[in-house]
């Protein structure tokens, strides 16, 4: 009986909202579902990173199915463009694979004016195209990966590669390095990894970047572009998001992690790597080459950002409710698409950060789950 009443009140709330009721519907409690409050009717816009876009689109669609009064549009225009649009306030939230740099935060009024939360976790694979060498057969170490991308290892039958792959018949073939030609968070995480494991790389390129001066190799646009390019070119190797590797059934290498174990990159490996770093924050976000026996070495968070002070209370409430859901229930849509689930410590950080979002001085996030 109580359940029916609750359902009826939720339905009434939805109806009200659908009829154009805005903040009046905010307070309708919804105790039946995930423990999250019913969000007010709003149409939210976000823009930014392309890497988490499939996850966001699936999650936001599911959210709209759940709460039909909230529609969310996400434009995967790239992290840089997303940050620019947020600073011009043309979107309600921005998305970036790398948290705001100091200069970018300054353009938005300072680091305390923006709340940044980790939304999902990704890991990268090294995919290759070698005849007769199947998925997971090739083994790469931090040293050989750095040498390949520095151009010091040029042939597949290089002694350094043979040493790690005694069982394989590595061909006398040129290594064709493929990297991203467009600026991307994927490149940032990969070059962050390279800078972490190789002093030579760091000295040569100056450290991580969304686009860097590559010592060797060809560029292709987007994860899909790199993936296609590798599949097409014998002898090619490149870094690709795990999701693309699995979806396109590419062959990927086992990577030696910081504990000395060879692991095949996986979503679980990314979560394992992330849970090694309890102090992760927007200013200390690197989780590459993590310790731990299962850690996938080339992993990284993707971030969402909103203004701390929301001028429009209704929209602000809808935004924090959405993000609260995204880092909790919404994570299931990440797993389906081969993204990694956020570790629990990061979810707690996110919710604490979201509690700091205010409108007119009062916090907008009412219930945390």
């Amino acid at each position, binding site marked *: 009986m109580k359940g029916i009443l609750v359902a009826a009140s939720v339905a009434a709330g939805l109806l009200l909202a659908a009829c154009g009721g805005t903040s009046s519907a905010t307070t309708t409690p919804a105790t039946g579902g995930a423990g999250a409050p019913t969000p007010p009717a709003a149409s939210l816009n976000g823009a930014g990173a392309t890497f988490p876009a499939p996850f966001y689109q699936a999650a936001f669609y599911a959210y709209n199915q759940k709460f039909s009064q909230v529609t969310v549009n996400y434009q995967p225009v790239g992290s840089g463009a997303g940050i620019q649009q947020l600073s011009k306030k043309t979107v309600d939230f921005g998305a970036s694979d790398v948290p705001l740099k100091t200069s970018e935060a300054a353009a938005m009024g300072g680091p305390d004016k923006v709340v940044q939360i980790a939304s999902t976790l990704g890991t990268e694979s090294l995919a290759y195209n070698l005849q007769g060498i199947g998925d997971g057969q090739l083994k790469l170490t931090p040293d050989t990966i750095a040498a390949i991308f520095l151009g010091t290892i040029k042939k597949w039958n290089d002694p350094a590669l043979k040493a790690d792959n005694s069982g394989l018949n590595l061909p006398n073939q040129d290594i064709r390095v493929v990297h991203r*030609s467009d*600026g991307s968070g994927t490149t940032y995480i990969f070059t962050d990894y390279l800078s972490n494991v190789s002093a030579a790389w760091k000295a040569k390129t100056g450290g991580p970047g969304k686009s860097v001066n590559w010592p060797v190799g060809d560029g292709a646009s987007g994860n899909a572009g790199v993936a296609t390019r590798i599949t097409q070119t014998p002898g090619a190797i490149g870094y690709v998001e795990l999701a693309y590797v699995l979806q396109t059934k590419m062959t990927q290498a086992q990577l030696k992690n910081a504990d000395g174990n060879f692991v095949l990159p996986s979503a679980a490996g990314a979560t394992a790597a992330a849970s090694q770093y309890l102090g992760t924050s927007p200013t200390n976000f690197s989780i590459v080459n993590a310790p731990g026996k299962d850690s996938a070495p080339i992993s990284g968070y993707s971030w969402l950002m909103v203004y701390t002070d929301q001028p429009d209370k209704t929209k602000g409430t809808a935004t924090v409710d959405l993000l609260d859901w995204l880092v909790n229930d919404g994570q299931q849509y990440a797993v389906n698409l081969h993204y990694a689930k956020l570790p629990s410590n990061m979810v707690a950080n996110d919710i604490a950060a979201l509690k700091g979002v205010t409108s007119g001085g009062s916090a907008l996030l009412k219930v945390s789950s």
Partner: protein
Amino acid sequence: MGKGTAERVAPAPLVATSRQRRLISGDDVFRAVAFAAAALILVIAAIFVVALIVPALPAIARFGLGFFIGRTWDPVRTQFGALSAIYGTAVTSVIGLLIAFPIGLAAALFLAEESGVRLLRGPLSFAIELLAGIPSVVIGLFAFFILTPLMRDDVDPFLNHTLGFLPLFQGSPSGYGYLTAGLVLAIMVLPIMTALSRDVIRAVPRALREASLALGATNAETIWSVILPYARVGITGAALLSLGRALGETIAVTMVIGNRNEISASLFASGYTLPSVIANEFTEAVGNVYLGSLFYLGLVLVLITIAVNVLARLLVWRFTGSEPMAT
């Protein structure tokens, strides 16, 4: 009745004057609209130039003319130079033109001359229109999936085998790079080259051709020593217009050029072009100098393209426009 005549008399001049007035005002309105439209184009062009220069200023201030000879493109250290991209743009466009020029000219002669096989002329004209209408991204797809493996496995090794003593054809081919990009550009400019050359050749006075034939020259001799010399300037213009198109082509080239910021003698090597750098990097170009450098590249590209196009227009106009005086 009196009222009626008064009415009949009065309207005549009234209608006439109002018609006159309407004619004059209609003219004025038309003139104003036409002037506004013409002015609008100028205003848009001016806004465009300003909008290109202003964001480029941070990069112009930092690198100055050294931008043109800088070979580094390093977003991490904020060091930018355009030379590799300028080189790649020039090399691919020239390859494209070198391939498209003889083919386009021969096809144009076939289309313009009476002696051609009539049955083929219709389909050929249609094919040229068709080729001109294919969006460049579709040509890029074709190049990426069909042309690059063909170049890697057959064409490049053949060139390497036969002409490998030249630095142009050395190194191990990946299927991507200057030569493939040049070939794609050849496909893309071929319709322009053919159509413009055909028009130029058709503008050669009939009397000249018939006089040559009457003197006993063969068709080939007439083409070689009468038609081509006469149409030379116009054909050069057609070639330059094709070059202008090739310089700015972006997406199809980006898909096969290899996107490597390097200058290599070998045509098998990967490189970069001005439009490709811009298309690849603008979404994540953060910071005034980085974004400014992309605008600076755009400015360089616009200046080169304008120069080539103006030269081409002058040549084509000089030919087709001054034709009566020539005879």
